């Protein structure tokens, strides 16, 4: 009884001392609008549509991001250019619904859709949170600097026939394989 009382009292006093010493620690919070918050490069924030190293759109309108999206905030329509490349005719992300999970980025086969370290997207009207394709597109390649989907993919487009992609062998005529 007595020892537990003394031990308990000492524990309480020690707690007081330990908490008091927190007065001299570094603050965990920052005065946000005046002081910028450090965001790591892989921070999952505002979504952008990147371009390949040649400056062409990377997105091929495959809809995998829209399928992967758990909250269905991505909507796009396919368009086809004269050279055979696919591109999104419209691309719309509703950021008031987006949960910034990054699954679209993981699903994207062409590194087109990427999340960026930016969260400052407050709007007064909810409709203003719906970003159209023009709002999403950026000029650079984003995080993936060298990837060029059409140069490694087997799809034939104008100026690049089948078998002309990087590390791709010419197509074989399957009928010559017959025994």
């Amino acid at each position: 009884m007595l020892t537990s009382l003394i031990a308990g009292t000492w524990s309480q006093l020690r707690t007081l001392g330990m908490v008091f010493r927190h007065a001299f620690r570094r603050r965990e919070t920052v005065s946000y609008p005046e002081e910028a918050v450090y965001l790591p490069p892989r921070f999952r924030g505002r979504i952008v549509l990147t371009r390949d190293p040649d400056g062409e759109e990377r997105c091929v309108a495959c809809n995998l991001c829209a399928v992967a999206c758990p909250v269905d905030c991505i909507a796009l329509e396919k368009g086809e250019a004269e050279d055979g490349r696919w591109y999104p005719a419209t691309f719309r992300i509703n950021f008031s619904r987006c949960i910034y999970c990054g699954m679209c980025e993981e699903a994207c086969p062409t590194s087109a859709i990427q999340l960026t370290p930016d969260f400052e997207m407050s709007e007064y009207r909810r409709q203003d949170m719906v970003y159209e394709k023009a709002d999403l597109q950026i000029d650079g390649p984003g995080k993936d600097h060298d990837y060029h989907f059409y140069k490694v993919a087997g799809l034939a487009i104008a100026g690049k026939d089948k078998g002309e992609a990087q590390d791709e062998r010419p197509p074989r005529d399957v009928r010559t394989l017959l025994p």
Partner: protein
Amino acid sequence: MSVPSESVAAVLIAMAQALAILVGVLLLAAVMTVVERRLLALWQDRLGPNRVGPAGSLQLVADMIKVLFKEDWIPPFADRALFVLAPVIAMASLLLSFLIIPWTPTWGVADWHIGLLFFFAMAGINVYAVLLGGWSSGNKYALLGAMRATAQTLSYEVFMGLSLMGVVALAGSFNLRDIVAAQQGLWFIVPQFLGFCTFLIAGVAVTHRHPFDQPEAEQELADGYHIEYSGMKFGMFYVGEYLGMVLVSALIVTLFFGGWRGPWLPPFVWFALKTAALLVLFVLLRAALPRPRFDRMMSFGWRVCLPLTLINLLLTGVAILWLSPAGP
């Protein structure tokens, strides 16, 4: 009928003093609401409220404007008369207790020989504020909070009174000015250390401050007895809590830390410094210690603190008799 002009002047000066003390104490309690938030932030590695005015200095004004302009709603199921009366009692009983505090050798409202007993009486009346507030709200949480508060305050007041009897015995008086005078040379915290510890605990418990805030326990009771209060009625309970803090700090300074005594600096500065240090200790207690379970708190009061005060009182009595001129 002619009145001697010097007595009129004396009355006017006394009234001005009393008014200044009233305003000063109220302001201090109001400022403590903000200071506490900043201090809590300091110990929780945060910045705290620093948006209103330069470095958050106008936060108090913002809070006051907010609480004054809130809708002052009385629930239809409440007992109106008691509901309105409770916050008045809460604040008035604590404000009245400040009558007996001797701030400096010349400042102080009342110089009564019953001094300390008046404080106990006011602390006893303060229980009614919580009890009536919780009862008249017509709310389960409020009633549970009031029930806890009443049980807690009553059991802690038992040994709060006893813990100060050692001081009274040493000074030979209930008058706080005599008690301060008796601390010439040695503060009573040295001979009355047990009394100091128990009075500090009892003071925290009687003002329902953390870690003895079971009556308000936000997590279980959603603020307990003042759950139905809004606007300035809630503000009075809220400021009352801080008034209690200031009161207990000022009393501890007067009773155990020699009041306004101290070298070099003027008496009032000493009193203010000591009181401020105790107020910071109050906030530190809140920042550091979690809330114990209610039954443990009650058993701590009855089974630890009460015996301690009795032992303290016994030893004090023995020492006084031993050292008295009559001798053993």
